[in-house]
């Protein structure tokens, strides 16, 4: 990936995730997250959810990967922001999308701004966000 060949409006290749119970458990384990809402379905229902929830940081990890896979080893992730707007459970398929919204040279680095979103299979946006990726120029 080279800064010169990136165009505003360009779409990043979509990525699809199907978070499983095993993935949610191992994510909680690797981050030592004891929040019951991620592994105790009966408790999640007490809070009004249909099942255990995908961790907010796992939504973030999916959106991060959308960007790092696209930029390759020549790119540098400068920043990434996301807001978790809707919950997701292992029943959901999550699609991550991105589109280049801007390009500018900052301190000798080519900075590309990408609007990103993670969309649930019913069309609701779980997590919108924005990333800035730097490339050599």
């Amino acid at each position: 990936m080279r800064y010169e060949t990136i165009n505003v409006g360009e779409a990043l290749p979509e990525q699809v995730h199907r978070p499983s119970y095993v993935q949610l458990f191992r994510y909680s384990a690797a981050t030592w997250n004891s929040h019951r809402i991620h592994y105790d379905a009966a408790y999640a229902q007490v809070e009004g959810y249909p099942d255990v929830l995908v961790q907010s940081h796992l939504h973030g990890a999916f959106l991060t990967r959308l960007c790092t896979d696209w930029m390759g080893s020549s790119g540098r992730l400068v920043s990434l922001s996301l807001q978790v707007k809707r919950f997701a459970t292992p029943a959901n398929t999550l699609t991550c999308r991105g589109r280049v919204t801007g390009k500018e040279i900052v301190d000798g680095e080519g900075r590309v701004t990408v609007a990103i979103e993670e969309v649930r299979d019913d069309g609701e946006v779980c997590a919108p966000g924005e990333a800035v990726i730097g490339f050599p120029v």
Partner: protein
Amino acid sequence: MSVDEKLLADIRANIGSTRRADLGEITALHIRRYALAIGEDDPLYTDPEYARSQGHADVVAPPNMLPSVIEWGVGHPEGELNRDGTTGEHLQGVDTSGVRTMGGGETMTFHRPVVAGCRVTQTTTLVDATMREGRSGPMIIVSYRNEYHDEHGTGLMTCDRTMLLR
């Protein structure tokens, strides 16, 4: 129990307060487990030889790993956890028992790669807390900043995070 003005006042009393925590050494095993859990197959996170070919001393942590780890130490005995299984520690000592907490989002700014073997300190500052009426009743929105440095004082990343309390 739901959130109320008293809890908001308790949290707001800590605005501007800062806590520093030694997270210890970031190990290659922890990085590999995190990469596996998120479904990553980038060898930068798992293969030290590949990481060295990219100019790093060892495997590199996926970008959002540091802010994702909830507990870097042993943690608390089960009897000391809130009903929802959390400790509420990120609220700087304010009692949040009985309140439902959820991550609301974050902005991560990456300064340097986090390489296995480095020792990391985390500095947390409570930035703001406000209350508003949510769809299911009152909600407190707490924002705080986590800054991560290595053992040489080099900034690794900054994470501005929001927590929702209901």
